[in-house]
């Protein structure tokens, strides 16, 4: 759309036209501020819980489970040194042999979602796909937090549906 707009403006006599082809998606993915109605309702990043239990590939399940239990949660996120998400330990994996390493039992390559997705869309998505929670990451895969379906549904109750769908 932008290439055609730029071309049309040039034919209309504008001789200094530039095209930001990466567009609004690139801007949002960089975490830069926007203006508009979506700023009145929370987004996935705002609503995600930041006090997430994280562990490394070599951490033992028993130790991770202990931390998760103490925190009152039933999941942990396996990350690398830069907090890039590598896998998930859901309750089922946390119940396995405590001597196993996270790397051996994690669910690799989980679906992740960007912080800018409006909460209404996130809630609908989690319900539709029957996910109780979802990791929220930056576009380069770094963990922002975990969004729980219950939080998303509660916050989405007063939010309106958006025209632009942001989950791709």
């Amino acid at each position: 759309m932008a290439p055609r707009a730029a071309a049309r403006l040039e034919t209309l006599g504008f001789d200094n036209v530039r095209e930001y082809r990466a567009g609004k998606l690139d801007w949002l993915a960089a975490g830069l501020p926007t203006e508009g109605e979506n700023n009145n309702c929370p987004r996935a990043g705002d609503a995600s819980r930041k006090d997430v239990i994280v562990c490394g590939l070599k951490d033992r399940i028993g130790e991770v489970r202990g931390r998760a239990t103490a925190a009152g949660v039933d999941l942990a996120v396996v990350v690398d040194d830069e907090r890039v998400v590598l896998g998930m330990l859901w309750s089922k994996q946390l119940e396995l042999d405590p001597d196993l390493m996270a790397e051996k039992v994690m669910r690799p390559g989980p679906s992740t979602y960007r912080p800018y997705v409006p909460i209404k869309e996130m809630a609908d998505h989690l319900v539709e796909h029957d996910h109780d929670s979802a990791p929220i990451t930056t576009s380069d895969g770094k963990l922002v937090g975990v969004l729980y379906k219950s939080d998303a549904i509660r916050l989405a109750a007063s939010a309106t549906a958006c025209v632009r769908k942001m989950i791709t």
Partner: protein
Amino acid sequence: MARLIDRETVRQMVKDGAQLVEVLPKEEYAEDHLPGAVSHPLKQLDEEAGELDPNRPVIVYCWDSA
């Protein structure tokens, strides 16, 4: 043909006075737009182009490269 620019160049050019134009439908502009952008949807561009200053740079954008 319009020159392609990246995010940082957008920020600098807007700071220097360039006009930022979102060409998506107005409903999408209403939800989210870049700070300072104006809405001129592609389908209405012919009628609305006169609202732009031809003496200042114009930056157009939509959702992504698609």
